[in-house]
């Protein structure tokens, strides 16, 4: 199985019974998908659970796979559906107020510039700031950063128009900068 094959070719090969194709595909997307789910849920445990569910869903539905979009879109659509279910099952409301009306994170939760933190602490800080974002802003931001999707891809994946995605990302960036504070130059 060639590493040069596209995701779609690999998935088709896996659909047709090539287990090696799945290995390549998995290596390409494992870390990004894991981080996306972990940051979306704000819990590594929940992220792991959803992560496995997404991949198992992909494995089970492999025979129905057809190339109608990018494979990554297909994969993250599964993840998005699992996230919606997960939020619903945990009583969390993702449909929050419009991004523009979202409250700013409390000041005490933001970065204290006088503290010297190592990288681990910085990573914790980033996770904390992400968790303070409204889920839809967080999802849009993570799809941009982890999924490296285009605007249209994100809009299609989430099911909203492109302008809404742009707005969500814009607000997410602003809030993160405010939260991370001194970590940024």
């Amino acid at each position, binding site marked *: 199985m060639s590493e040069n094959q596209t995701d779609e070719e690999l998935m088709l090969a896996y659909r047709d019974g090539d287990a090696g194709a*799945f290995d390549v595909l998995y290596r390409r997307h494992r870390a990004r998908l894991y981080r996306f789910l972990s940051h979306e849920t704000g819990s590594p445990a929940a992220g792991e659970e959803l992560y496995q569910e997404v991949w198992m869903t992909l494995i089970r539905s492999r025979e129905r796979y057809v190339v109608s979009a990018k494979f990554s879109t297909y994969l993250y659509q599964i993840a998005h559906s699992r996230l919606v279910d997960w939020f619903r099952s945990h009583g969390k409301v993702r449909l929050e107020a419009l991004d523009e009306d979202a409250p700013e994170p409390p000041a005490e939760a933001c970065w204290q510039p006088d503290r010297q933190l190592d990288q681990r602490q910085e*990573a914790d800080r980033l996770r904390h700031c992400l968790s303070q974002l409204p889920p839809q802003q967080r999802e849009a931001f993570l799809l941009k950063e982890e999924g490296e*999707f285009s605007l249209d891809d994100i809009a299609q994946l989430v099911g909203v128009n492109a302008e809404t995605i742009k707005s969500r990302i814009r607000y997410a960036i602003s809030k993160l900068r405010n939260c991370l504070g001194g970590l940024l130059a």
Partner: protein
Amino acid sequence: MNTTPDPQLPHDAELSALYRKLAVEEPATDIDDAILAASRRAVGSGPRAMRWFKSSWTAPLATAATLMVALSVALLVRDHAPSRQEQAVTLSEPPPAPAADAPAPAAAPAPASEGATPPLAEPPKAAMPNEAAVAEKPPQALQKAEKKSAPPVFSVEDAPAAASKAKDVAPAPVKPAPVMSAPAMSAPAMPAADAPPVMAAPEPVPMRDAKRDRLQEKTVAESVAPPTAASRSGAGSGADAAVPTAKPASPITSERNSTRRLLGATSTESAVDEASPEQWANRIRKLINHGEHKAAREELDKLRKRYPDWSLPPDLAEFSKEAP
């Protein structure tokens, strides 16, 4: 995936760099292993399922084919079973009693493949009980016997007559005849007028294995003429009593009557010449039994001249001593 962000998207390079620097979590190795194992199982299940499917339909197919073959064989065997049962029933009838006063080979029709010489020397005593038996047989059985085994019957009882008509008849039964085509056997040997029904009766025997045909011939021959103890004890008189009761329409019976007349009245030179002393003596006995003592003495004289060294049986010796 895109390495450069979509220019349409809001982008903060510094934030993205920080995010990429800090967000380095990866799934645990055991999770990777579990997912990869699941993917292989899922893919493996396909071929396994296919193999199972193949094996699941090839095995029943093979079984079905085997059953079909077995069923075909069973049906064939069953088709042949009635004939075997018939043979068994026929063979279970009283076996032909050994002809005490006749050569053993002549009592039963020898298979053509074995008999180098046609059974020309069937003793009259053996033939006449056969007539009685035929007369006592139900018509159906008789017709059946005629159809199936006219040649053996004819060859046993009428061979002398046939020989008297045509000497070249003799080789006929010697034909390699597992099939023993009845017309081929009996056609030249028919005693003229009476014979045609017998000629027409036999159906062509399909070419089958020689063993079975021989068995059928033997069976039918026995069913036609099983010499019973009673008929044997009745000797000539019993047979004579039975002959008139035989249906005139029966070709075999009429044929035998003519043959018997031929034997009893005038044995031709050719027939006598070929007869052995014992057969000749039997014919003489038959003449005596018919009261044709004169003819019997003439035959006895001829026998003595032909076989001067042969010692007469006691009964014939006594008959020769009696005053004419």
